[in-house]
C-alpha cells in the first residue's frame, strides 16, 4: 500500500487513465479529484478517500446504534447522529405490539441496535428483524467519528478484542460511530471509553496497537 496523503476538496490526487474513482472522489478527464477533506488512498487501480471529518452517511445494510427521540402511532424515531433521524416501524420489530403500547417496548431515550433496510432521500428505515439486534440495556454510549470505525475494529476485529481483553467489557460498535460499552464495574467502562477516544484521536499514527497497549498501561498506573 502506498503512503496516504492529506487532500482537500478539488485537489488532484492522481493522474492517469487506468485509475478508478472510489469513495468521495470523482473522475474529471484524466484526473482523479478529491470530494472531501481526508486521507487519499490508492489501492491498485482504486482511488478513495478516508474522510477526517463530517457526519455519518447512512447506507443500506449498515448496523447502527441509536436513541429513541420520538414516538408516534406507527413507530419510533431514532437519532443515530446522522443528518436526519431514522424511523423504526411497528412492522419491523420481531414482536406484535398493540397500538398505544409502543412505550412499553421502547421508551424515550432508550437505545437500540438496528439495521438500516432502506435509505431514500431524507428518510432512513430501520429494522430489528435480524439476528442479534434489539434493545441495549445497561452500559454507556460513546460517540466517535463514523469514519474511524474501521480503525476501532481493527483487522478482523483485532483492536476491539484487544480493548475487550484489557478492560473486561462487552463492546458493540455501530457503523454510525456510536459505541456501546458495558462492564461489571463502571470504572471498566470509563477505561474502555478513554481507550476508544484515544484510538479516535490517534487513528492514523502508525503502530496504533502498540500505542493502545501503552496507553492502557498508563491508565492502569494512574488508577493505582
Amino acid at each position: 500500500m502506498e503512503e496516504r496523503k492529506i487532500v482537500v476538496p478539488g485537489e488532484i490526487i492522481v493522474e492517469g487513465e487506468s485509475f478508478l474513482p472510489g469513495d468521495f472522489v470523482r473522475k474529471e478527464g484524466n484526473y482523479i479529484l478529491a470530494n472531501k477533506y481526508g486521507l487519499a488512498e490508492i489501492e491498485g487501480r482504486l482511488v478513495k478517500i478516508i474522510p477526517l471529518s463530517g457526519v455519518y452517511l447512512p447506507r443500506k445494510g449498515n448496523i447502527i446504534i441509536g436513541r429513541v427521540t420520538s414516538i408516534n402511532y406507527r413507530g419510533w424515531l431514532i437519532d443515530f447522529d446522522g443528518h436526519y433521524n431514522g424511523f423504526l416501524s411497528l412492522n419491523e420489530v420481531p414482536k406484535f405490539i398493540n397500538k398505544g403500547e409502543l412505550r412499553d417496548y421502547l421508551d424515550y431515550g432508550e437505545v437500540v441496535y438496528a439495521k438500516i433496510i432502506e435509505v431514500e432521500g431524507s428518510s432512513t428505515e430501520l429494522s430489528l428483524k435480524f439476528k442479534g439486534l434489539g434493545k441495549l440495556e445497561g452500559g454507556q454510549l460513546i460517540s466517535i467519528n463514523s469514519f474511524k470505525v474501521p480503525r476501532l475494529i481493527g483487522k478482523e476485529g483485532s483492536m476491539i478484542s484487544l480493548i475487550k481483553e484489557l478492560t473486561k467489557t462487552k463492546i458493540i460498535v455501530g457503523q454510525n460511530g456510536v459505541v456501546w460499552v458495558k462492564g461489571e464495574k463502571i470504572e471498566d467502562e470509563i477505561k474502555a471509553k478513554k481507550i476508544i477516544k484515544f484510538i479516535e484521536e490517534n487513528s492514523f499514527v502508525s503502530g496504533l496497537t502498540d500505542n493502545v497497549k501503552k496507553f492502557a498501561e498508563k491508565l492502569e498506573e494512574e488508577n493505582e
Partner: protein
Amino acid sequence: MTSLLDKKRIFEYLEKEGKRLDGRKPLDVRKIEFEENISENAEGSVSVKIGETEVYAGVKLSINEPYPDSPDEGSMSVNVELSPMADEDFELGPPKIDAIEMARIVDRGIRESKFIDFKKLCIKEGEKSFTINIDIYAINNEGNLLDACSLAALSALCLAKMPKYNEKEEKIEKEITNKPLPLRRENMPIMVTFYKIGKKFIIDPKRDEEEIADYRLSIAISEEDEEIKINAIQKGREGSISFEEIEEILKKLEEIYRKQYLKIKEKILSYG
C-alpha cells in the same frame, strides 16, 4: 441527546462512588483559561475556556440618553448569543428564551453587586451618558455556559478602557484612552451555578450532566470585609427546591469560593 443508559450511569456513579464519569469530584471545577484582547475593535475583549466550553466576550461603549428614573447615571446591557456553531441544539435567529435568561442572570449579578459605578458614566445630567454593552458569544458548549458567560463578562469589563469622547461633536472616537472603566473592583461578583442530580449537588457540569439535572441554582456573591454577600439568585428547570437544600448549597458555595474561586478572582482583578 443523552440516552437513558448514560443518565443511569451518571446517577449510579455519583450516588455510589461520589464521582463523575470524567473522574472529577462533585464540586470540582475544570481548568479555566483566559485569553485577553482577542478583538481589535472592542474596548475590552476576552476568551474564556472552562474545559472544552468556550465563550468570547466584548465590551463596547455607546452614548445614550439616561433613563428618566436615573438622570445622573449611565447604563449597561448584556447580550448573549447562542449560535448553532456552539451546539447542535442552538438555532439561528433572534435570541431564544435560554439566551435571554442567561444574559439576564449575568446582568443581574453584575448590576446588584454595584460593581460598575454608573454615576461616573454620566456625561450631562438628563441628556447624555455612556451605555456599556457587553456582548457574549458561545463558541463551544460542553456544559456550564452560564458560569463561563459570567466570568467572560467580568474579565472583559476589567480589561476595557474608556474610549475618547469628542465633546464638540458629542460622539465617541475610534481611539481608546488608557483610563479603565469606573469599576468598584472590591465588589467583584462571582457566580457559581449548582445542579442537583439525584440527591447530590454538582458544579461545572458537562453537557450531559446539565441535561439530566433536576434543577439549577445560580448564585452571584461578592465579598465585603471578609463576609460573603449574596447579590443575585436564580433557579432554573422544573425540579423543586427546599429550604434545607438552599442552606446546604450556601454552605458549599462559601467553601468552593474560598478554595477554588479566589485564585480566579485575583486573576481577573489583575487585568487593567
